[in-house]
């Protein structure tokens, strides 16, 4: 049985349509290019990036932050399916969890890439190294991210092995873990927001609204990304995904975007009306400061695409049109991606604590390495999703594809 299963899984991964093979080849190529650049970074040090003392975190940390958000996709599916027993989502909840696994893996890769002395990672291992817990919020992040990774990975493996055997996986054994994954998902976002908002040296980040805004925007971008992927999956595989499931997700995205824009408005009001010296990074981002205005077009693009997406989503009849929905999802993905990088990490450092403005933008090496990480993440996701679908549709194993598990 175990041998059978492994054979089946390997067969599933290595066989597929022309498009599947082209996709995998494309991702592998990107991953290899990224890895080649990683060697250069290891050799020269982080000086090969555009980061400097004045902007000491950049594109890697921006991507990390965004991807913590994408890992949220899972919980947006877990809640309606397991808590409200909304059946249509049952088909896709596992794929959401696989997405979470891929996203958290990417997060960890970005963190390691950003470390100046990554070979000393063992210093972080409790007992062997020195784990500055609970003082350092970074240690909290290490804990919750790894916990979330293990949790989702176990849930997926458990569910798939049950399904493979033709049994239901919604068992008493699993439910406590499912419930636990909800606060765990919230915690990875909250803790990641706390990394920034706990720094009084950086007035731009030092605002309590950062954590809730983080969660709201994460619950938009993750599901927006998934919505597009689910449509691709149902076109290219035998997995049936009902419109109702997608509409439910779109509805959740709508309200989260409303909250995100509302919190953004509160932030804008607070900064502009109080107009203290702390408005400088805010001005740097939105209007430009002392002739430095490279972020201005980015942030306005983000706000405009997010607002257009919100307008599309808010009218149910429009968001039920898949063409419009896809435009909205693409806009949200772009909008939130910009918000996390150009809109959050970079302006946090400009002006610096000593009043200098260093206009940071990632260089091509940082972009290639980041693309490589994304490619590896998407490889993990594609392989995971393909196995999951093969098991769910009964291609391998003994699942009854017509039954809702």
């Amino acid at each position: 049985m175990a041998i059978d299963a492994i054979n089946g899984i390997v067969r599933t991964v290595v066989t597929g349509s022309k498009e599947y093979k082209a996709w995998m080849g494309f991702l592998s190529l990107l991953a290899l290019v990224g890895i080649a650049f990683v060697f250069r970074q290891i050799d020269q040090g982080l000086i090969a990036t555009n980061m400097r003392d004045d902007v000491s975190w950049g594109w890697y940390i921006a991507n990390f932050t965004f991807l913590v958000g994408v890992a949220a996709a899972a919980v947006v599916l877990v809640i309606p399916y397991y808590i409200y027993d909304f059946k249509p989502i049952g088909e896709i909840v596992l794929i959401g969890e696989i997405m979470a696994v891929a996203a958290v893996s990417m997060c960890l890769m970005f963190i390691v890439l950003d470390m100046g002395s990554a070979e000393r990672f063992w210093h972080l291992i409790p007992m062997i190294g020195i784990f500055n817990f609970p003082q350092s919020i970074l240690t909290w992040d290490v804990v919750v991210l790894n916990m979330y990774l293990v949790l989702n990975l176990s849930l997926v493996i458990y569910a798939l092995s049950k399904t493979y055997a033709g049994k239901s996986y919604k068992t008493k054994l699993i439910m406590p873990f499912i419930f636990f994954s909800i606060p765990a998902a919230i915690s990875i976002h909250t803790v990641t927001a706390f990394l920034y908002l706990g720094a009084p040296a950086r007035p731009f980040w030092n605002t309590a609204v950062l954590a809730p805004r983080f969660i709201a925007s994460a619950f938009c971008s993750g599901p927006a990304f998934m919505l597009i992927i689910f449509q691709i999956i149902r076109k290219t595989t035998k997995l049936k995904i009902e419109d109702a499931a997608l509409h439910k997700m779109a509805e959740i995205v709508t309200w989260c975007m409303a909250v995100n824009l509302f919190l953004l408005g509160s932030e804008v009001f607070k900064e502009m009306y109080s107009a203290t010296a702390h408005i400088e990074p805010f001005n740097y981002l939105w209007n430009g400061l002392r002739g430095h205005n490279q972020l201005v077009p980015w942030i306005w693009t983000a706000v405009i695409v997010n607002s257009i997406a919100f307008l599309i989503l808010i009218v149910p009849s429009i968001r039920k049109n898949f063409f419009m929905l896809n435009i909205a999802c693409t806009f949200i993905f772009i909008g939130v991606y910009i918000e996390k990088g150009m809109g959050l990490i970079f302006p946090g450092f400009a002006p610096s604590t000593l009043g200098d403005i260093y206009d940071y933008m990632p260089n091509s090496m940082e972009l290639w390495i980041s693309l490589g990480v994304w490619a590896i993440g998407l490889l993990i996701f594609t392989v995971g999703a393909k196995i999951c679908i093969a098991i769910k549709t009964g291609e391998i194993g003994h699942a009854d594809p017509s039954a809702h598990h």
Partner: protein
Amino acid sequence: MSDDIKGKEKSLITRRKFLAGLTAGAAASALPAGEAGAYAFEELFRQHYKRLTADELKDILAKLEEEMSFKYGKEVHAKATPPIDNTVFGYALDLSRCIGCRRCVYACVKENNLSRDPQIQWIKVLEFQKGNNKWQGLEHSNRYYEPEQVPEKGRFYVPVQCQQCKKPACVKVCPVQATWQEPDGIVVVDYNWCIGCRFCMAACPYGARSFNWGKPSMPKEEFNPEIHYLGNRPQYKGVVGKCTFCIQRSRAGKYTACVEACPVGARKFGNLMDPNSEIRYVLENMKVFRLKEELDTNPKFFYFFSMGTGVKS
């Protein structure tokens, strides 16, 4: 603990004598390849400074001396002098005297073996326009002023370096305790323990921490061979460094390099616990203030104006 380390110091002497002979032997012969490899291996698994036993520390310092003597072609003395009892170091800077000449900056670079390329400077001298009322939050500074002569008319200067906070934001955030406050108030970094995450740089309100973005380098002849494990020993690519009040000098009862370099005597340094120290005199007789007091980091670095409210222009 401190007795402990004193013990380490003593047992080092013999080793140093041996080394002196070794390096004096002209063309300081190359480190055997095997030994260099073993050293790199040891470094990879080296424990945190505070967890090293006296013997381990002794060995490490000896190897450091050997390695640095070989690399820079001079006799090197590596120490880990412990804090002195009843001593907490404090610093005061007279803004009415500072002329913005940056001699402190260069003296610091030399004393502390900071990388020349890529350039690292632990002291930053900020230039402000007189009459600019936004200087205390440091928002409107110019760090890259290049006039033909300093001080320039209508400008004043505020040198900033690690403020040796009593409540250091950098220490709190470090995930591996690679940076901490010593009993004499100096905040240090273990360059062999730092993982280079740069969280401390995001947290420090005074831009005091510098990252080694690339491999540090300096001309051999400018290498300062009197090094301290927690201070001016050469740093590595991918780790953070910062001003340590010249720990190698201050713990030996000397002034810091910046104090000695300042041509106008704007810099005052001493033991805050000693009622007769110069620093205590300044604190008791001048109206001192600290940067970004609202953050309550509680710096042990004070600023004051001994004459009027600024230099005559």
